[in-house]
């Protein structure tokens, strides 16, 4: 039950944060494409939007997702590296698609105040910073 609650808690947040050690480990295995999953903070942690993870997981299919998870847990299972790379790439791709949609909506929005709120989200996504107005 606790695992279920923890899972729901993770889903209820905007971002999941990889620790600096996790980021280093993933970069060592999968290269710098790891960084495209989110924004690298000054302490070396990586903040990844939950909705992008969900989109990537849904697109990957259960077998490849299981392989990817096994690969991320294990140091030896080189044969499954491709699935872990696919997961990382799809998380990054989900964010590129989301930013593209946000820009389309921002440019099509006739209400200036609403458009500015949309811009603040674009700004946060591009720069990884929540700037004050």
């Amino acid at each position, binding site marked *: 039950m606790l695992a279920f609650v923890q899972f729901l808690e993770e889903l209820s947040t905007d971002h999941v944060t990889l620790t600096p050690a996790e980021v280093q480990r993933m970069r060592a295995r999968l290269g*710098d494409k790891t*960084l*495209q999953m989110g924004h690298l903070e000054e302490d070396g942690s990586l903040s990844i939007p939950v909705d992008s993870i969900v989109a990537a997981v849904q697109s990957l299919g259960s077998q490849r997702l299981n392989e990817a998870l096994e690969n991320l847990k294990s140091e030896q299972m080189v044969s499954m590296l491709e699935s872990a790379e696919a997961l990382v790439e799809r998380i990054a791709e989900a964010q590129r698609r989301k930013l593209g949609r946000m820009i389309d909506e921002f*440019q099509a929005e006739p209400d200036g105040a609403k458009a500015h709120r949309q811009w603040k989200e674009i700004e946060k996504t591009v*720069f*990884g*910073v929540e*700037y004050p107005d």
Partner: protein
Amino acid sequence: MPNIKWHSLPLGVREHLEERLRLRQLSKADLLKLMEWIRTNPEVPDGAWCKDFGTFKLVGHGALPSSFLEKDQPCFGVRI
């Protein structure tokens, strides 16, 4: 070689970027390129530098990004 401190991007520069994106004076593809580049955590020279994204250029000095230039404005500093 420092990394860019995006927290210090001036308000006026961000407002200008907002306006130009709204008016479609910079392309969606180039803004995506900017995001991908930022996520590589790029190192920049200590002095003046310039990065060309196609429909706009980003210039800065050391860790501090200073402005977005129009595509026809000349770069100054080290091209990266």
